Each structure stands twice: as C-alpha cells, then as structure tokens.
C-alpha cells in the first residue's frame, strides 16, 4: 500500500532495472500513472534527473521481470515424475523493494543529494537531533525530511517549525518504511540538488534494518537511557548502519550505562561502524556529527562530479 495516498499497489507491474533504463533513454511518454489524478506521480515530464520521482505503477508495454525471465529459457523449467513442474527463480525475496530502492537511489544520486535513513528505538531522540542538525546546517544545505510514524503528524510539524520541508508518512499497522512508500514521498518534496534528505524511520530496532530505502547511509541512534547491550541484542540494525550516534550523554551521570561496553558490542557486530557520542539536548558532540554529515554530502557531490567528468572525457571533442 502506498503510505502517502493509501492507494494499493496490488496491480502494479514491476519493471526490471534494464527496462527502467531503456525507458529513461527513450523518454517513454506512455508511462503515465493510471491514478495520477489523485496524487502527482510526476511522470509526464519524462525521466531525466530533473523529473519528479520516476516510478509508475503500471506500464502496459513493459514486461515484468517474471515475464522476462520466465520466457527466457526452458532450462529453468524441469519436469518432476508426478507431473509437476519445477521453476527455478533464484531471486531475493525483497527483490521488489530493492528495485524501488535502486530507483530512489539513482534519482537522489543524480541530484547529488545525501540521503540518511535514521533508525532507532522510539524515544531515542531522532526528531530532536534532526531539528538541531537542520538548524545548524541550514545556512549551508537545504534539508528535507520524510517522517515515518504509525500515527500523527507531530514529528513533521516539529521539523516544519525549523523551516525545512517535511512529509509525514503514517504507516498505520506497519512497522517500517519501504522503498515504494518513500518513492512517493519524494514526489511531494520537490528536492533541490546538493541538499540533504533525512528519512526518520519508524521507531523500531528490528524491522527497518531489512528494508533498503535507497539511502546513502543508515544512521543508528542509541540513547544512554536504553541498555548498553542494545547493539548485540538487535545486531542487524547496527550491522546495517554506517554510524552509531550515542545520544543523551548529558544523562550519563544519572544512568547505569557502560559506554565502553556499548562501543565494544557495536564493533563486534560492525567493526567499521563510526561512533559519535553526543547530546542533541545540550549540544555536546554535535559538531563532530555535523562534520560527518558535511563530509558525507561532499562525497556524494564529488562522486557525481567525477562520474560526469569521466563521461565528458569520453566524448569526442568537437
């Protein structure tokens, strides 16, 4: 289900990345979404990097990946002795999500946008950290936020008070954001190039780990009011994240939290994880975090610039 408008994707046809790429090249105009009348999918403008989020739900002329691969070869079919047929598939179960995530990633990377997916338990201070980060960096970067919560638009309203544009997604009974929902949220943001996109996932240390949204990095928040063994209790989340922000360190004198042990546990599940200790409330450690964000944004811009210059150097000079 699309979390922005509530439309169902039951009848959607998923296209392979190759078909999406060929569509991008030909600028296929037959890709208008069937229900674009009730929310903008922004497909009428073609599929270049300046277009809005480039995915549709139904493309009549496109083959689905199943059609493509099922008709490819009969070697994937084999008889069993009781008249049954075995069909070899060999695909990731979350293949559909991965396709949408890749579309999002391509779209955001074309615009040189740094996208961070914030994951943590509820109450670890994600929204407060985002508010402080937006305020501190707004002179340098335009920031957009996608807020995921089961209910209410409280968090998006807190973000909007900073002047940043925010879209709230209510997941209802859902426990995580998925790439398809995020793709639709992107359409509502009119993102400028070289900006920052923060996705605040549903407060949950389990489910969001499995779902790639097309982000550059997952950022895990852990507050010192939680247990110091969270990284090994919920290893998937910390293994999937590039950074662990240890938040609320102003409360360390009042709580039983062994910082060294927590860091050791985090490194056990993810040896490469960057750890930053901070307090979004009183500001300590925040400058190190802001620096990390700036470097990450520069890396995104530079990698795109590098690709562009490589492309231009390949072109014959006129």
């Amino acid at each position, binding site marked *: 289900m699309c979390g922005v408008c509530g439309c169902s994707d039951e009848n959607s046809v998923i296209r392979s990345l190759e078909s999406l790429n060929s569509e991008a090249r030909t600028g296929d105009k037959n890709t208008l979404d069937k229900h674009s009348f009730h929310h903008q999918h922004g497909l009428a403008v073609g599929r270049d990097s300046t277009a809005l989020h480039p995915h549709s739900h139904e493309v009549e002329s496109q083959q*689905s990946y*199943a*059609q493509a691969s*099922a*008709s490819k*070869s*009969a070697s994937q*079919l084999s*008889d*069993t002795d009781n*008249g*049954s*047929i*075995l*069909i*070899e*598939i*060999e*695909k*990731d*179960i*979350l*293949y*559909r*999500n991965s396709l949408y995530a890749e579309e999002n990633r391509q779209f955001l990377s074309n615009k040189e946008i740094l996208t961070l997916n914030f994951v943590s338990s509820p109450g670890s201070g994600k929204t407060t950290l985002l508010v402080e980060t937006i305020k501190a960096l707004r002179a340098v970067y335009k920031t957009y936020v996608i807020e995921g919560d089961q209910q209410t638009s409280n968090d998006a309203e807190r973000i909007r008070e900073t002047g940043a544009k925010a879209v709230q997604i209510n997941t209802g*009974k*859902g*426990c*995580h954001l*998925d790439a398809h929902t995020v793709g639709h949220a992107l359409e509502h943001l009119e993102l400028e190039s070289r900006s920052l996109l923060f996705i605040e996932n549903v407060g949950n240390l*389990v*489910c*969001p780990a*499995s*779902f790639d949204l097309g982000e550059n990095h997952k950022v895990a928040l852990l507050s010192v009011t939680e247990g110091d063994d969270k990284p*090994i209790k919920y*290893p*998937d989340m910390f*293994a999937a994240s590039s950074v662990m922000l240890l938040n609320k360190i102003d409360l360390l004198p009042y709580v039983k939290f062994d910082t060294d042990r927590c860091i050791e546990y985090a*490194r*056990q*599940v993810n*040896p*490469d994880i960057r750890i930053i200790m901070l307090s979004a409330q009183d500001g300590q450690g925040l400058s190190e975090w802001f620096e990390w964000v700036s470097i990450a944004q520069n890396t995104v811009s530079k990698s795109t610039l590098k690709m562009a210059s490589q492309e231009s150097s390949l072109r014959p000079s006129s």
Partner: protein
Amino acid sequence: MHELSIAKSLIDLASEYAEQQQASQIEEIYVRLGVLSGMLRPLHFCFVSAAKGTACEGASLDIEEVPITVQCPRCNETKAPVNRYSLRCPDCFATSLKIVTGREMQLVGIKVKANRGIEAKQKSN
C-alpha cells in the same frame, strides 16, 4: 511485523512466476534463509495467513537454512564465527570479519502442477 511484509513479498514473487506459467496452484516453495535473517520460524508463522486467497495457498514451504560463515583476514580463512551474537574469529578472536553467508533471504524456486500451456512450451523448446 516486518515478517509479514517479507512473507507477502515472497508470495507476490512466487505467484507472479506461477501466473507466467498459467499455473493457478503452487505446490511447493523453495526458500533459502540465512540464520541472520531471523526469518526461519516467523516465515512459517506468517506464511499461512498471508497466502490465503493467493496461488500460494496450501503450498508447502521447503526452507534451506544457511549457517553463518565469516571471512577472517588474519587467518585468511572462511569459517563459522564464535556465535551469532559475536561474529569474532573462533581461533584468533579477530573482529574485522566480513560476513560471507547467513544473511540470505531468497526464493530459490517453485513447484507447480503441470498444465497444457507449460507442456506445449517445453515441446516447442
């Protein structure tokens, strides 16, 4: 809850392949799950409810469990780690280990009842 989304993704993917073969009923679904996916038990639990009314209803799940293996740069070997909560090398206790297997969540294939459509297709090939 994400177990249900994953079960639903599996069912959608399997049903789409079955539909391409004009098979309305899937008999068996072959799945490969790594220990780290945490999906071994939850998938069984969610599958039955999520499969209702789809081509997967009544299908049996055949799950291949993939153990965790890690690559130890110090020993230059792939082996099982200390345990699933401590991915250290059991011999030299190095920590910078790459996970080689154990995260898999894959649909390997499906078994469907043969119908004329498929038989004709096989003959023509």
